[in-house]
């Protein structure tokens, strides 16, 4: 199947999800409202801390807002894309419903990753982008097209890294009969993302920067916009994202042998 077909399929899924959303408008409006509230409360909580401390790990108020804007974009993807698809994935494993997916002439990981989504996170995404733009204006920073491009690439790499970790954990569902909170593990870690990577020192820094570089996911793209990027760290984020993606793919191929769908 060509890349064009995958692209076409990706948007077909978005279309179907849009139809589903219009079927349940009340659900969409309610969850959008809740999601906006969460985002505003989070930003408000940090603004209180910053009003007192002035900076966090050397990042001033507006630099922190920019980081939180990036985090908010990542959060929008976390709940609207990753959580929806991974919940569906583990439910299908537990109920033995991967059957139809596995018989399709399309990459199974692609189907597991792109089939579902919700549109509740759209307002969160808009808030995240707005906060970034607002912070850049306040910091009086003008970003070049190349800078925006690199930001997007690093943001996507961070998302890939996070999603791959999530996918690996969700794939463990093949070995257990039921584990309801398996999809809460990675969201639980995402608090790490909303503080600068320099917050972590010693063993924690080694763990969250080198071994499991979750602290880079929001920090590194933000550093690019702020003009304080580190080339080595940028490469490490790109490499670790690709490596984790490959590991997730290999782990799935291994785990699928374990799959024993529920008999009828």
């Amino acid at each position, binding site marked *: 199947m060509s890349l064009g077909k995958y692209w076409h399929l990706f948007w077909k899924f978005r279309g179907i999800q849009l139809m589903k959303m219009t079927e349940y408008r009340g659900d969409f409006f309610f969850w959008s409202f809740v999601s906006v509230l969460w985002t505003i409360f989070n930003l408000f909580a940090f603004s209180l801390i910053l009003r007192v401390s002035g900076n966090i790990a050397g990042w001033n108020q507006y630099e922190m807002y920019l980081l939180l804007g990036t985090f908010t974009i990542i959060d929008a993807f976390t709940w609207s894309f990753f959580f929806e698809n991974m919940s569906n994935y583990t439910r299908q494993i537990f109920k033995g419903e991967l059957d139809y997916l596995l018989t399709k002439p399309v990459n199974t990981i692609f189907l597991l990753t792109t089939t579902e989504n919700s549109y509740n996170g759209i307002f969160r995404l808009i808030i995240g982008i707005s906060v970034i733009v607002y912070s850049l204006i306040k910091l009086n920073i003008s970003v070049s097209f190349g800078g925006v491009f690199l930001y997007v690439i690093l943001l996507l790499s961070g998302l890939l890294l996070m999603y791959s970790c999530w996918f690996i954990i969700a794939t463990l569902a093949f070995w257990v009969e039921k584990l309801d909170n398996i999809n809460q593990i990675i969201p639980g870690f995402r608090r790490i993302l909303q503080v600068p990577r320099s917050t972590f020192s010693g063993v924690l820094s080694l763990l969250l920067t080198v071994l499991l570089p979750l602290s880079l996911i929001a920090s590194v793209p933000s550093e690019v916009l702020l003009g304080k990027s580190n080339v080595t760290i940028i490469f490490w984020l790109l490499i670790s994202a690709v490596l984790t993606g490959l590991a997730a793919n290999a782990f799935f191929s291994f785990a699928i042998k374990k799959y024993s769908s529920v008999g*009828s």
Partner: protein
Amino acid sequence: MSSIPAVKVDHLKKHFKVYKKKPGFMGSIESLWHREYETVKAVDDISFDIEQGEIVGFIGQNGAGKTTTLKVLSGLLYQTSGSVSVLGYNPWKRQAAFQKQFSLVMGQKNQLWWDVPAMETFLLNQTIYEVPEKQFRNTLDALIEILDVKDIINIQVRKLSLGQRMKCELIASLLHNPKVLFLDEPTIGLDVVMQKSLRDFIRQYNKEFGATIILTSHYMDDVKELCERAIMIDRGAKVFDGQLSDLIDKYARNKILSLAFSKPVQKKLLEKYGIVKNWTGSTATMLVPRKEATKRAATMLTDLPIHDLNIEEIPLEAIIREVFGEENRLHL
């Protein structure tokens, strides 16, 4: 018919390790730190070939291994040992070229998107299977007409009846014109009229596209009407593979004689001709050895005041019950 089998199964085994829970509350507590597992032999050394264009019925009780075999053939389950080949492909490799040529329909599971009309799933499958627009429209129009679903394909799937959903499931599974079709209880839960229309459709699809079909069903009418050949599985092992008529020959030692008398006939008088199953005086149902059925019927016509006589084969359902159950074995 081609000499290369469409489906080839060679000494297939599929064993599962299942956790055996002790009964009661204490058993649940104990299971938190200690679990006993046992191996279930879902499929145990099965071999068969299916030629292109054949419709084969998979018969067996619940848990006999029918669905497991179909899932191995579809590439969903990895076999414990043995080999399988479908259209020359190893299903487990799940190559796109293979997946575009077969379809699995499960009566108890669905692939249709629940909250949107079935038409959306059809369009999605068109993209997934890369079906050219013209072929898609032609096939879709033909399937819609045969299955008479024109009015429902644009209604949300959740609002459809079970029978309507099953018809749409079939369309979704056939839009890419699969050469091999695995039907796992496609008529389950449907009323007799709907069962009949689905059977007619399956037969027509087989004729029109020369498709190879494996059908599992609990309804013997499905098997009788569609399949010449049957494979019978019991506790993971193949116990019969051949023509349905041979199955009857092999396991049915008797035929059923239904009699109506012009004058009452005593039961004792009938017992010398065979086993009397039902007797009212003016009517009787008897089992007589198959090979002698005609001869005995002729003798009875001469000896007894028979007003009407009918000779029938033992129903397939009864034969299946006989094969799988130890009870009443001698009565058939």
